[in-house]
């Protein structure tokens, strides 16, 4: 991988900043929009890698990433939001100031010497930024009570992992990217079925308002 540091940092920032903003956003549609921005950044990184390596396979992978992550998955998520009338995802375990303090701690940890075992950690500013984005979306999944936020969190987590792997020099091929996008499609189908079952059984998709009467087996 020979992409210039500036391009890598731009792509990493385009993944990290939406990950941070996801923790601040209160509308589920905003979460989906931020995920689209992240996905476009990942597709852009794959395009740059394909141009750099002269690999047509990665070009197809980038196009597939746009189709699945920036079009299909968001459309599916927006349909779920509409179907379950889950426009807002305000409930979280920590309030906003504490959540933000936790995010600053997470970012500081991502820059700590713990990760210096990663070969290019000290040479590339994008590596700690991507680690921070992965931790930020992990925090989103843990902190939010809404199922939509959790689903978006898992998808955003995958974006961070894919880009980190690409930047660390893990070999990317069309087959690998095809498998990843196939995995995403399967994950969305499972999540959708899970949400449907959850809604039918408990009458809600947010743990804060689950009907306690349905929590025991009859």
């Amino acid at each position, binding site marked *: 991988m020979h992409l210039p540091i*500036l391009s890598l940092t731009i792509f990493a*920032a385009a993944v990290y900043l939406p990950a941070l903003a996801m923790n601040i956003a209160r509308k589920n549609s905003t979460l989906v929009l931020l995920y689209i921005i992240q996905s476009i950044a990942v597709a852009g990184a794959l395009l740059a890698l394909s141009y750099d390596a002269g690999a047509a396979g990665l070009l197809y992978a980038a196009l597939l990433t746009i189709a699945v992550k920036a079009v299909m998955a968001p459309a599916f998520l927006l349909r779920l939001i509409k179907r379950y009338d889950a426009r807002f995802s305000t409930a979280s375990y920590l309030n*906003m100031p504490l959540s933000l303090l936790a995010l*600053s701690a997470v970012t500081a940890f991502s820059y700590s010497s713990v990760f210096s075992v990663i070969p290019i950690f000290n040479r590339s500013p994008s590596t700690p*930024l991507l680690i921070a984005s992965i931790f930020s979306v992990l925090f989103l999944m843990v902190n939010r009570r809404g199922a939509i936020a959790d689903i978006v969190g898992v998808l955003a987590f995958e974006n961070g992992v894919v880009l980190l792997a690409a930047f660390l020099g893990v070999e990317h091929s069309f087959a690998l990217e095809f498998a990843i996008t196939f995995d995403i499609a399967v994950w969305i189908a499972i999540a959708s079925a899970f949400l449907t079952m959850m809604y039918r059984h408990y009458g809600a998709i947010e743990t804060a308002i689950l009907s306690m009467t349905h929590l025991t087996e009859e």
Partner: protein
Amino acid sequence: MEWITYILQIAIVLGLSPMVIGLIRKVKARMQTRVGASVFQPYRDLAKLFRKDEVISEDASWVFRSAPYIVFGTTVALALGIPLISPLSTPLGDILVFAYVIATGAFFTALAGIDTGSAFGGFGSSREMTIAALTEGGLILSLFAISLIAGTTNLGLMPAALLDASGRALAPLLLALAAFGIALLAENARMPVDNPATHLELTMVHEAMILEYSGKRLALMEWASYNKLLIFIAIFVNILMPWGLAESFAIGAQSSALAIFLVKVTVAASAIALIESSIAKLRIFRVPDLLITSFVLSVIGILIIVL
């Protein structure tokens, strides 16, 4: 030749600031499918107020009488330190001087609000001081994060320094600008912190403090608030888009820099109008959440730079 730049800086801020307000109001009106007043309406309002007589309460002290001049003076002083159309270095451009001159203006506005003993002015001042105290941290830290990237604490020199910044600075710069953007809205009594168009007692903050003013002093207070908004916008746009500043005192260079600056300000003013049209005002006890967000975004930006 520097004195020409200083005169130009003051002339641009004083001359352009009412139009920025007019533009924001016009864009907001268009978004509400109204024709709206002309972008020059704030000039007419100021001219009308300057011609009117004043009514001053018998209980008003020298604080109430002198506050408009002090507040207006702070904005003129700030105009000398900010990057507008060319880089310049004055002590007034230091980030701490900037923050505390802003705070001086807010302090005298709040004092004037409580000076006449009006209940409206009192609660407006109380709210203003609460918001100002919470905004200050985010404002100073966001400017500090930008100064760490630029390598200078002088606002006038920051845009030129940022042109040479490394790619590593991108994420912290955007975080600092997001924090500064929140501080911009809060310091200038814009939505979602305050509604500049309302005179409803439950929602007023800035308007409550200047409710006792009339005539020339009201004109100065209004003009000072217009200037302050333009000063914040100028800093924001010239740090976000640091290109297009004049590199010489030649008329051609200054004219093209002014044209580019006008485009940047138009974009920023339209963005503010868009934000104000698309979000509701926050309840007063939800405002700290937003302002703490500004503070923590700056902290994260600083952490990324320092670590």
